[in-house]
């Protein structure tokens, strides 16, 4: 879709044409650009349709938080400027005035510069079976579980972390002025100074609190869930409404993976196998459906498939067969 850099792109034309003071020359040039190549017209029409779709959100309550966000930013900037000018007005003698304007000039430069600074966006990821802990610049920490992707975007107003996939536990340093938000599965998880875990499991998202408090904001409606505390966890489907349930069993699982362990406490065999497979390149398959609900308990090191399979052979009437990079668990009889 992207053409050579010399040429203006569809989005550039769109912005140029939708300027209130667009001139005839630009319009003429635009017309000939459209005629140049059928692809140009298609690209441009895509932009038009997309903007019409986005504009349809204009009166939607879901857009209010975004508008609010820009309003807050605008007032913050205005008061910053007001602060600068009061420094400017204060000094009495010329030397101080000169110094103050130098300070002002430097600060303005910094301030104007900060607008064009791209927001730092750092991507961290783990492969299957890997775990990783990340220290963020504000002292908060992220423990990233197997097969996960997290994007961290900090600015002056907000600490934003997007959990694109997988599972992570966040230890958040409380900052009153800068909320810590985790975006996962189309909703926002807002920490109130705490340690909590977010698990994007396919289209199903689980939020569990280990310490402190957390609230989940439904992205579409802006409604907030009740405040989550340890033992109360939230679940939702992608972008869907949030359900809060009593659930302390998941905390055992989370504290275990943070230690590099799998702890099964009366887990159904098929659930235990699914959990094992999250960490393993070589997947295990239960080839004995009658045993799917057999309950097992045990503690294993993550990645130690060998111990897991030998334990299974000890406690259940099964044999383990390895073939084609798959580990099949078969009924012995």
């Amino acid at each position, binding site marked *: 879709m992207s053409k050579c850099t010399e040429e203006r792109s569809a989005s550039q034309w769109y912005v140029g044409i939708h300027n209130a003071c667009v001139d005839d020359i630009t319009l003429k040039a635009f017309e000939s650009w459209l005629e140049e190549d059928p692809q140009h017209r298609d690209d441009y029409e895509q932009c038009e349709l997309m903007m019409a779709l986005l504009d349809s959100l204009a009166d939607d309550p879901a857009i209010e938080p975004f508008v609010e966000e*820009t309003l807050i930013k605008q007032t913050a900037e205005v008061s910053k400027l007001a602060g600068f000018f009061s420094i400017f007005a204060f000094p009495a003698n010329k030397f101080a005035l000169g110094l103050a304007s130098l300070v002002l000039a430097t600060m303005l430069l910094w301030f104007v510069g900060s607008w064009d600074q791209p927001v730092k966006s750092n991507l961290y990821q783990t492969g299957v079976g890997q775990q990783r802990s990340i220290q963020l610049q504000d002292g908060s920490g992220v423990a990233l579980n197997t097969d996960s992707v997290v994007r961290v975007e900090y600015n002056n107003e907000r600490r934003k972390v997007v959990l694109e996939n997988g599972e992570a536990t966040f230890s958040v340093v409380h900052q009153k002025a800068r909320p810590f938000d985790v975006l996962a599965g189309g909703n926002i998880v807002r920490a109130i100074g705490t340690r909590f875990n977010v698990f994007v499991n396919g289209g199903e998202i689980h939020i569990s609190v280990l310490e402190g408090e957390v609230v989940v904001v439904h*992205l579409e409606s802006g409604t907030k869930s009740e405040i989550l505390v340890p033992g109360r966890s939230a679940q939702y489907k992608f972008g869907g409404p949030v359900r809060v349930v009593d659930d302390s069993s998941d905390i055992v699982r989370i504290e275990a993976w943070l230690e590099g362990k799998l702890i099964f406490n009366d887990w159904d065999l098929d659930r235990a196998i699914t959990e094992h497979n999250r960490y393993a390149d070589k997947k295990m398959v239960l080839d004995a459906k009658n045993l799917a609900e057999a309950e097992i308990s045990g503690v294993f090191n993550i990645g130690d498939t060998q111990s897991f399979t030998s334990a299974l052979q000890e406690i259940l009437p099964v044999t383990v067969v390895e073939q084609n990079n798959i580990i099949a668990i078969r009924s012995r009889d």
Partner: protein
Amino acid sequence: MIGVQATDQREGVDVVHYSKNSKRRISMSSSNSQLFEVYREDLRRYISKMLACPADVEDVLQETYCRVYARAAQSEKQAQNPRAYIFVTAANLIKDFLRNRLKSERREGPSVEDTSLLSTEPNPENEIISARLKRDMLVSLERLNPTCRQVFVMHRYQHLSHSDIAEQLGISVRTVERRMRIAIDHFRNQLREYL
């Protein structure tokens, strides 16, 4: 998704009632209509990805049919790639439909049927765009670089001109336009399945 389900439930029940916006109904039997029939289901899926109300989906579908039929003889493009032609026509109609609906809501407020429900709760029946599209748009807005998002929101949702935004933020109009362009490219990429 929701839109498609609703269509299935309502089809054959009371289609005319739900198609209150439609101005024309034409029945066709020529071979031109066969061409359209080939793509009808694909096209319906495409439109229901974007529009929430099954009646609106049917209206746009019908209107596309009318346009394609009316221009069948004169269009070279259509002969070359009928599928692309039909979908581009539908996309244009959806665009016009959204623009008109938005304008009339601004002018007249919500329609009579909407107010008769005497409820301020968001009612899925009155939604114009599909829930899935809305969610995807909000998520991509959330994912947009914050400085670009600020400019985009001010321009599209607070209806400020480029120069007003530039003045308010103390940046140049060129910077405003650059951020708008980045925003548009971002959305085109994020929402490509709808375009």
